[in-house]
């Protein structure tokens, strides 16, 4: 069988692991394909490379293809999110100045209570709180807005500003931001450079947020279904490997190479184990499953997750809710995910959408093989998102 090459653009982040492992560990080869991985300098360039055909697939922030389908932002090529590459994995942190003000109030940095963190942060803020995020269409922005809206933290005045992740530590140092929400390893890099402290993992706001997706052009999905399915299977098997605790050491070493993330393996290991050093004082906090690559059907692109994103974007940009949710749902291609993984041993859920935020404990659900257990997907404020019906 001739090996066919598929070019894939990615941003050098811990959650690019399933793509990198699919190529490095032979999961791609087993499907008769090779992934030609192209590191990108910015999310805009990942999007453009995919939109204009320089690559055929990409690691994307989950809201990006939804925003494009809604006509938001500068490029609107129709894309298909064929699987979720990871759930959670973002980190919220603050500058040393804000950290000190929080400590002066007696705040304990519990690393879990989102409401208490917001209250403490509101008290520690004088004037406007400027928060750095990697991209305007990102789970980072959606989580921050959700958190700010339902805690009243937006009252002191919040400015959310785009800062490329590798420049986040510098922006904290020069005072152009007071806080950040960013994917690992960049939060830990800020701690290591002694310019910031970690406040909350993203999952303290939404415990099962679809973070990155594997995206292709919708047109390409139609003309190259066979290649697409092979890639999806290879990446799914790599994700299964990545989720095993015994893979962590090898995964951290692999990602740390100069060709990929080029940061020390020890920093990457923090995101994989969920054991973080949160400040220059060296205090440690643990979070269970900081980034989820596989368990609890993490890779399944739930139409209701897309609708949540669509709903939040509609709220922010004044679009029609029902229409935005319907358009968004069409981007998360649970149909293609089912088609690609039906004979692989994957346990697929019976439904393609769910209430988001209603699962409070690990819960068995109807599935192809009857063994699927979903993980808690609650929001910190206990709200449940009920997706609107599509007419």
């Amino acid at each position, binding site marked *: 069988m001739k090996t066919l090459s598929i070019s894939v653009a990615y941003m050098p982040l811990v959650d690019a692991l399933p793509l990198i492992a699919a190529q490095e560990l032979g999961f791609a080869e087993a499907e008769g394909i090779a992934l030609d991985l192209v590191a990108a*300098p910015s999310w805009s360039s990942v999007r453009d490379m995919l939109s204009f055909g320089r690559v055929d697939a990409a690691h994307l922030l989950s809201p990006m293809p939804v925003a494009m389908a809604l006509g*938001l932002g*500068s490029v609107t090529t129709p894309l298909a999110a064929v699987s979720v590459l990871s759930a959670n994995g973002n980190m919220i942190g603050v500058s040393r100045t804000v950290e000190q003000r929080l400590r002066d109030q007696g705040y304990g940095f519990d690393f879990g209570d989102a409401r208490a963190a917001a209250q403490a942060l509101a008290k520690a803020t004088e004037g406007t709180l400027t928060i750095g995020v990697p991209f305007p269409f990102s789970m980072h922005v959606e989580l921050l807005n959700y958190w700010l809206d339902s805690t009243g933290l937006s009252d002191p005045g919040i400015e959310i500003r785009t800062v*490329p992740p590798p420049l986040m530590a510098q922006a904290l140092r020069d005072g152009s931001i007071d806080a950040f929400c960013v994917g690992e390893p960049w939060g830990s890099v800020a701690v290591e450079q002694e310019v910031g402290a970690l406040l909350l993992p993203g999952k303290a706001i939404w415990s099962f947020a679809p973070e990155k997706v594997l995206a292709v052009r919708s047109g390409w999905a139609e003309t190259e279904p066979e290649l697409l399915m092979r890639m999806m299977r290879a990446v799914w098997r790599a994700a299964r490997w990545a989720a095993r605790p015994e893979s962590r050491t090898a995964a951290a070493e692999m990602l740390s190479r100069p060709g990929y993330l080029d940061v020390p393996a020890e920093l990457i290991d923090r995101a994989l184990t969920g054991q973080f050093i949160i400040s220059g004082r060296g205090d440690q906090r643990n979070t269970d499953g900081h980034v989820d690559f596989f368990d609890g059907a993490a890779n399944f692109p739930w139409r209701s997750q897309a609708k949540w994103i669509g709903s939040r974007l509609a709220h922010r940009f004044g679009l029609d809710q029902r229409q935005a949710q319907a358009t968004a749902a069409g981007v998360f291609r649970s149909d293609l995910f089912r088609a690609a993984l039906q004979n692989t041993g994957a346990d697929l859920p019976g439904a393609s959408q769910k209430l988001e935020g209603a699962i409070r404990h690990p819960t068995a659900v109807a599935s192809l093989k009857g063994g699927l257990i979903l993980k808690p997907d609650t929001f910190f404020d206990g709200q449940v998102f009920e997706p609107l019906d599509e007419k």
Partner: protein
Amino acid sequence: MGMSTPLSIVVVEEDRDRAIAIGDALRSSGDCEVHVIVDTSGLARKIAAHAPDIVLIDYDNPTRDMLEELTLASGPLERPVAMFVSGAAGGLAQAAVEAGVSAYVVDGLRPERIKPVIDTAVARFQMVRQMRTELAETRRALEERKVIDRAKGLVMKAKGVNEEQAYMLLRKTAMDQGRRVADVAEALVTASGLLS
């Protein structure tokens, strides 16, 4: 076209000399005002202050994501900026992206006004990119030479051999281990630093 006001172009380029070269090339290609932004902190705000028709930025510049905020500006007085490629003249845009230029263009600008700007920018950015690659390679070669010289010195002292023999030994080790001479030299220099 003769009656229209000059195009206002913003070039984002952190290297001042190159920024000036690009600006000059654009000015000579037609009727336009060129503003150069060298310091990229607060980039979106600086660009918005110029209210340009076109923004040009190197494709590899990571601060490019800051520009995406401009496309979200929704106030009635703010000028909508869209990436050029989303507009009608798709072919030109693809050429720009492939050449490594990102162009953000105000919606509704006529393609015939944009084309000379993009053509000039593509040529100039490509030249800048090539120079940058060459410079990085030269710098790396110089640094590697320095490390190899230090490693040679260490081998000469430790083994009591001359310079040529020291280099031969480094090269043989590299070949045996399937590594580059510079990498072996660097390992040696690091190790000796630890032990001294």
